[in-house]
Each structure stands twice: as structure tokens, then as C-alpha cells.
């Protein structure tokens, strides 16, 4: 019995080393693959939802969880597509006549990513605004549905008069992930781009298989 206890205690803190035949890196779930037809270079999407709960979905359900494809969108012609980089699903540069630029990023993270309020307050912090309470959330955000996706949209004008910044943010849950569309830049430029941004969100839709 003592031997059994002793043996069970081993192995939890041991490092290991071994040689294996060359391995391909894990393939990403289809829901997280790069879908954007408007993105010039395919991103290297590195974030995927956590694995399903142990045991899988078999026990209590007849309906399998479908790992469908991701989201696609159509950007205005005036927006300049940028390489998406490691973490982005899509990336655009928005420019005005004076040459000022704003950055539009599209990202997706597994799970609810802390929920709407946490993300709204994170964005508020980025433009030097104080956080709001859950009771103020309804008034701070607008909601609409497009192509079967429920969007929550916020418009945050920065509180720093020396460097007036603005964030237009949209978030929507899709499959196992939360998708973020965020336009950040000078206050005047972002405010001017708001109609185009809202029209852009209307074009976001699930990729049809």
C-alpha cells in the first residue's frame, strides 16, 4: 500500500525528453481559420477556443457541436487593407483627406472574454475614460442584428483634450468565440468614419460552407 502511494506521488514534477518523427503543428478548428476575403495576406491565427468539456457532447445530446467556418466581411474601397499580423483576423488603415490615419482591427478570442462590460471598460481605459457600472451598460451601447449576428456597438470619445482619440467598437459572439471590430484613431477622423464603420458591420456574416 505504501508502495502504491509512493508510486502515485511520482511523475507530477518530472521533466521529460524524447525524440519523435517530425510533427505537423496542430490544425486550427475551422471556426477560427482566416476567412476574410478582403484581407490581403492570410493571418496566422493562433487563438482557438478551449477544447470541449471532457467527455464530449455524446452523453446527453443527439446534436453534435458543429465547427463551422468563421466570419467574412466587405470593407469600403477607401479603406486600405493591411497585413493582419499574428493576432488579427483582419486589419485596415482608414485615412482622411488631411492624411490622418485610424486603425481598424478584427480579432477573435475564445469564450466570452470576460463579457461585454469588461471589454467595454477595457476600451474605455484605452481612451482615458473611467469604467462604467453594469447598470449603465444598456445606455452606453447600441445593439443591432445583421446576418444573424447580434452586435453590441460603442462609441467612446477620449477624455484627453491634448490627444483627442476615439474608439468605435463592435463585438459579436459567434460559435465559441467573441469577435471584436475596433476602429481607433483621432477623434475627428473616427467620428467621420462612423457611418462607414456601421455599414461595414452590416456586411459581416458567417462564411457559408
Amino acid at each position, binding site marked *: 500500500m505504501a508502495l*502504491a502511494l509512493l*508510486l502515485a506521488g511520482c511523475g507530477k*514534477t*518530472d521533466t521529460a*525528453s524524447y525524440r519523435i518523427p517530425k510533427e505537423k503543428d496542430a490544425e486550427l478548428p475551422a471556426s477560427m481559420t482566416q476567412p476574410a476575403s478582403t484581407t490581403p495576406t492570410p493571418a496566422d491565427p493562433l487563438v482557438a477556443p478551449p477544447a470541449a468539456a471532457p467527455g464530449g457532447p455524446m452523453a446527453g445530446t443527439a446534436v453534435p457541436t458543429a465547427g463551422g467556418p468563421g466570419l467574412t466581411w466587405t470593407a469600403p474601397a477607401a479603406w486600405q487593407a493591411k497585413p493582419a499580423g499574428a493576432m488579427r483576423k483582419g486589419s485596415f488603415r482608414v485615412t482622411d483627406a488631411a492624411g490622418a490615419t485610424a486603425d481598424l482591427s478584427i*480579432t477573435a478570442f475564445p469564450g466570452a*472574454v470576460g463579457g461585454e462590460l469588461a471589454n467595454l471598460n477595457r476600451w474605455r481605459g484605452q481612451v482615458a475614460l473611467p469604467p462604467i457600472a453594469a447598470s449603465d451598460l444598456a445606455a452606453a451601447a447600441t445593439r443591432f442584428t445583421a446576418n444573424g449576428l447580434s452586435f453590441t456597438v460603442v462609441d467612446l470619445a477620449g477624455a484627453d483634450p491634448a490627444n483627442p482619440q476615439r474608439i468605435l467598437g463592435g463585438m459579436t459572439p459567434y460559435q465559441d468565440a467573441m469577435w471584436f471590430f475596433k476602429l481607433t484613431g483621432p477623434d475627428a477622423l473616427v467620428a467621420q468614419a462612423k457611418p462607414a464603420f456601421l455599414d461595414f458591420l452590416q456586411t459581416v456574416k458567417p462564411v457559408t460552407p
Partner: protein
Amino acid sequence: MKTLLRDLRDFFVSLKLTVALLVFGMLLVFAATLDQTNLGIWGIQQKWFRTFIVWQEVRGISLPIFPGGYFIGGLLLLNLLAAHIARFKFTWRKAGIFLTHLGLILLLVGELLSGLWQEDFHLRLNEGDTKNYAESYRDNEVALTDITDPQFDDVVTIPEALLERHASVQHPKLPFRVVAKAYYPNSLLQMRGPASPPSLATTGLGLEVVAAPQPMTYKTNEANLPSTYVELVAPDASPGTFLLSTGLVAPQRFDYGGRSWKITLRPKRIYEPFSLTLVKFSHDRYAGTDIPKNFSSRIKLTTPDGRDDREVLVYMNNPLRYAGLTFYQAGFENNDRTTILQVVRNPSWLLPYVACAMMTVGLVAQFGIHLVAFVQKRRAKLSVPAVA
């Protein structure tokens, strides 16, 4: 001294102790069932059953609140053994009772050994995929892989337990030291913004992404997302501090010392001396309905030496047992194109079966002995001639 030993013996062979332990056992199951809403099934097994003492945190202080499963089960085992040694005398008439109790002892020992030795993994296979490893449900590891050789990968793994301790690991196969600077059992990954606090990471994805620690979840439909910040320290140019997370599926690459490396945090893997290929997953339904009739995975099992190259069918209650591992059909996803097999390594898996067989035979024998004695008695009574 003799009195003390006698008292001790009387205590351990006492039937009162048996009853008290059974009552404690029932209370334990009841309390653990209630606690399952907070900790989930895995959490309560560790907290209530696979422990000698149940600890509960009260205002930041851990207090012992109840004897654990090992304590109650262990005492029950001692009680049973002591009673047999001290009180019971073997006779053929009681052979059934002995065998039944022996089966019970074996069942208790089997449960203890399963608790100590059993390891659970899972294997996800898409149709056409081949894998020679399974992944843990709960344990994670940092894997550092030297990918310079075009034929082979040299892997060094560091278990989660060392990350939790913020350990510094110098492995002979690594040209740098691995220092765990932070470890979060559950975390949120977020893009870094202009106002985000400085990151611990100095290279890789951690420059763009930040991991925020979160309370652990025990809900069955949620998964924890562990993350860690790991620094690679070398005498000359250190590769830097990486943010690693099981949420970052693809490994991060870097070059050091003229060799190419990749680093990742992933579920703990066990490699097997054979490989499995999913030929087809079938999800049969009753005709005209969506009610499932059968789930099965047709798997090709191959060993590198060619001794085994065959197809096996794994379905509910028909697992594949091979090389000390058991593969059960556990789930599916991806529109019936991916199967999930539960992989169990339990060297003591036969004990419960043997124990149950012994108890069954023991009970049948005991009732049989009584039945025969009863019938003989009755026959003897009937054969006595009636007195006129």
C-alpha cells in the same frame, strides 16, 4: 500494555466502528454531492474522496472539516481485515461469507489503486488523421522542441506543477534555463492596448496579447485557459520571456544557438508505441428521427515494427484495449467528422471485475449452502412418520 493492545484490537474489530464508518461514508457522499455545484465532479473527487482529510477554506485559512474518502475507506478496510483475523473462524459453512468479504476487501483496494494510478487522457481524431499520442484532460506542460533536424523533433517537456512553483529548470538537452515567471490556471487573453500595463513578455505574441488571471471554473461546460510567462535565460543573448497559453494553438518559434526552436503550453501528452488513424466515424440514427442509435469509430491500429496493422471498431461499451491503454468512444464533433476517444491507463482495471465476481460467487455459495441445509431439514421433517 496488554490492556492497551486489547483495547486497540477491540476498537478495530468493533461492529460499532463499522456502523460509524458507514454513516460517515454516507455523510461524505451527501456533502460532496452538494459541493459538486461549486467544484464539479473532478474537483469534489479530489477534495472529498481522494484525500485523507477534507480541507475547507474559511476566511483565508484552510481548516480540516471532515475525514476524507481515503481515511474512511482505509479504516473500513482495517476494520474488515481485523474482524476476519480476530473474530471469524473459517468453516466450510461460512465459505460464501468469507469469499464475499474478500471480494469487498479487493473492491476497496481496487478503488484506492484506481485513485492513485488511473490516468485519463483523450484523443481527438479527424477522419483520415493519424496520431500516436493522447492528451490529458487536466494537466498541461510546456513543450520546447528543437525542430532543426528535418527528420526528427527533439522535445523537452516541463510539467505544470513546476510552473506553479515558479521553478527554474535547467535540462541537459536545453542550451538555456527555463524560468517560470508567472502561472495562471485560468486566464483571459486580450489584445494589448495603449493603456495596458507593461507585459512580462519581451518577445513573441506576448508583445501583442496579455493574459489576465481569472478564477478557476469547475463547470462541466466551461474549460480553464491556463497561461504562463516563461523566461529562457542563457549566458549570452537570452531568447527572452514568452507568453504561453493553451489558447494559443500554434507554437511560437525562435532561433537560438544556431538551432531552431518552438515553444508552447499544451495539454500533457503521452506518446504511444503505436498509431491510430480514424478511418470513419459513424453516427447512426433511428430511421426517420434524430434519435441516436449508435456511435462508432473505425480505427486503423498500426505499430512501427509492422506486428500490428489492423482495423478495429470502437463503440459504446466496446472499447479497444491495447498496450495497457483502454480507448472508449467518448464523443464527437465537427459534424460527425471528428471522434473523441477517452484514453484510460489503469493498471488495476481488472480488480473491480475480479472483486464483483468473487462477491457474486460468495453470495450464491452462501445462499446455496443455506438452501441445501433448509431443503435437507425440511425433507427430514417430512420423512418422519406420523404418529397415529
